[in-house]
């Protein structure tokens, strides 16, 4: 791997994406210099179900990156998603007993350790810890060092994932002789590449509509308020179409991407039926366009409402006055942004990776938001020391080349 490159890999349900980027030190911005998507096999709902086939997919993307972009990868940041990933909100308290009752950096580190331990769950890896704020006695402050108090309380959001599922994903990369330097939640990655500071301050919900999973991240007042992942995605839409109209998955995928609308609208005269041309084992026939839209609408409507319900459970939407941003391949389905706007009663747009360079000429850039965000995450982690120790003891934190 060329010196100074960070590589992120997303082993998705539909495709595996390898993304390599370098840091422009003058502008402090990441530039994507290599992007390779390849179809994935052996993964369902973001989880490895067939290691051998998943390995083939990883090897294919590594080979393509090496042959086409002359980038050989041996370590990378790995993205993970799946319904097992969830957020926990915890806090921890530390008595400030020194003579002048002033908070020091050591006090911050100590209370952070306390809260992180509370965030950890048995059988899970603590992927991320995100400080949510501090209280000095009862007063909320943003930067407590040097301030006086009797009791320092730290609030944190921890993102946990089932360790076995993460290990399965990492083992596939290890089998391809790739060192995984970090594991990161897909929603966090997408947010890194797409969202601006202003959006985060105003409040924003990012929903990554992938093939196997739907990840979401909600920001309030510039901080992550909650995250989550649901094991339902674009694959379910395709499956619904295949079952409803008795067509192959391949045809269903084409119908989804090219013919369907997430909104059930009046159909123009002459377009009421969709012709399915003769194929191996299938005679030529036509299907009702409105029924196709109904099937797609039902599924996407349900997915978005599930996210909305989860955000309500976490008491986020009541405080949320911003917008909704969609990423992932599902964001490009016709009518999705309008439907999301109806369901959340907020403006909705497709999230373009504006926080990286190099994706300007890529088709459907929002579908690469997660992979690009993994690269940004890699650089940010390399630049800043982590708060407290990570659970992933087997990961070597070596970035940036040899």
């Amino acid at each position: 791997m060329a010196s100074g490159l960070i590589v992120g890999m997303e082993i998705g349900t539909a495709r595996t994406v390898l993304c390599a980027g370098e840091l422009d030190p003058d502008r402090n911005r990441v530039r994507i210099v290599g992007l390779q998507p390849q179809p994935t096999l052996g993964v369902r709902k973001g989880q490895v179900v067939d290691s051998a086939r998943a390995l083939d997919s990883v090897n294919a993307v590594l080979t393509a990156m090496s042959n086409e972009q002359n980038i050989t990868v041996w370590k990378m940041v790995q993205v993970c998603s799946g319904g097992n990933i969830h957020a926990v909100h915890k806090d921890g308290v530390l008595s400030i007993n020194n003579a002048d009752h002033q908070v020091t950096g050591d006090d911050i580190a100590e209370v952070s350790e306390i809260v992180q331990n509370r965030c950890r769950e048995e059988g899970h890896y603590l992927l991320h810890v995100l400080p949510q704020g501090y209280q000095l006695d009862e007063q909320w402050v943003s930067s407590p060092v040097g301030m006086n108090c009797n009791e320092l309380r730290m609030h944190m959001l921890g993102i946990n994932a089932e360790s076995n599922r993460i290990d399965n994903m990492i083992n596939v990369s290890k089998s391809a002789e790739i060192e995984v330097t970090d594991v990161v939640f897909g929603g966090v990655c997408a947010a890194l590449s797409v969202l601006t500071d202003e959006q985060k301050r105003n409040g924003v919900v990012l929903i990554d509509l992938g093939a196997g999973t739907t990840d979401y991240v909600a920001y309030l007042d510039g901080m992550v308020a909650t995250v989550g992942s649901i094991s339902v995605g674009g694959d379910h839409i395709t499956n619904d179409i295949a079952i409803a109209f008795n067509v192959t998955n391949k045809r269903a995928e084409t119908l989804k991407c090219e013919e369907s609308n997430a909104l059930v609208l009046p159909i123009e005269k002459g377009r009421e039926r969709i012709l399915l041309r003769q194929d191996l084992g299938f005679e030529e026939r036509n299907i009702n366009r409105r029924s196709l839209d109904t099937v797609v609408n039902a599924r996407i409507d349900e997915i978005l409402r599930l996210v909305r319900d989860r955000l309500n459970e976490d008491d986020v939407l009541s405080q949320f006055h911003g917008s909704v941003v969609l990423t992932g391949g599902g964001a490009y389905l016709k009518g999705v942004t309008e439907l999301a706007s109806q369901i959340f009663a907020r403006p909705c747009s497709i999230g373009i990776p504006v926080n990286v360079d190099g994706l300007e000429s890529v088709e459907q850039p929002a579908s690469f938001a997660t992979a690009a965000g993994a690269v940004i995450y890699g650089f940010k982690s390399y630049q800043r020391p982590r708060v407290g120790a990570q659970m992933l003891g087997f990961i070597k934190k070596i970035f940036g080349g040899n």
Partner: protein
Amino acid sequence: MDTDSSMLLLGVGGGGCRLVQEAGKLYGPGMRVVCVDTDSATSRNGMPEGQKFLLIGGSRLSGHGAGGDAVRGRLAAQDDRKELAALLDGVRTVVLITCLGGGTGGGAAAEIAHELYSNGVTVLCFALLPFSFEGEARNTSAVQLLPLLESNTASLVRVPQDSLFADAGAERMDELLERSNGIIAAGVSMLWRSVNSPGFIALDPQRMHDMISIGGNARFGFSVSDAEDRAEVAVRELLECNLLEKGSAIRKSQAVMLGIMAGGDLRLAEIGSIMKSLRAICPPNCRIELGTVLDSRFDGRIELVALAFEPWRESGTKSAAAHKSAETGSTGPGGEPPPVAVAPPLSSVRRTPKSRGGNSKLNVVVGKGRFQHVEATIYNGQDLDVPTYSRRGIILER
């Protein structure tokens, strides 16, 4: 038991709202009535005292109605699910009235019935079918929704409007409409009166609740007479009315709920005469529940309302409350959670033991396709790998 608050009359869609408002006026104060519609015009002239109106799908449809689109009606009901739940707090039994063939009356009614059923509320649904002259599209849409309503209500009362009008016996359209609306309104309000302000024979609310819960689909019949031999005339007309298929529905029924409304001049002999005629054509093991209502405004007149239930299930079979406990994960008698992946709570598959003959061609068993051998995604008791359209009971046009 607080009977007033535990029963509610719910009108869905323009037609349903009109009928429940009529019933509410007939009954007077004390009847809990809620009207639900996507068209804000329903409440434009104000609601009668004690009646509430809920506009659903306001953000989606802006109060202009569903435009005859059942899918829009369904989505509108989903939009305001929580507001509806708040209005139904404490309710055990809902009598839902809807006119099928339209958008709100069709789509929203099915969605609301499902929501009520999922929350353990017993629903008796009066579904008025469109006239034959309203066209094939409306009639097809109405018929397609019947299995969905059937699977989400304790008892479905199909009221073919063609039969209703034949029984109304008027010639002018305005008279026909007034009389037929009056028949439904009178029938529904009598159910309330039988429970809440009965005469000397009360229809026990728990027994009515049980009858609805474990009775099958039902047919509704109505008659009125002010003749000198009013009892004999009323019962004869009841047994010959088109709504009860000229008595055929009674002959096949296993349970009949009969309401007799009259003035203070009602005689015991008249009740005996009515019951004798009814028993003569009921099957031998048919259960008959009787309630009487006395209202001085009905001196000289007798009104009869009958609900004839089709196959009668043995007690202990699945009721709405049992369905709710199954959905929330309570364990059954064996301590095992219900198999949610095998039996999705809402689908076009008939739930046993409420299966009955006919219409089986509309029911299609739907699998999970490529997710058949993958760990299921279960949320709130539903297997999300089963197609959403199937779980929501959406009938697709072919």
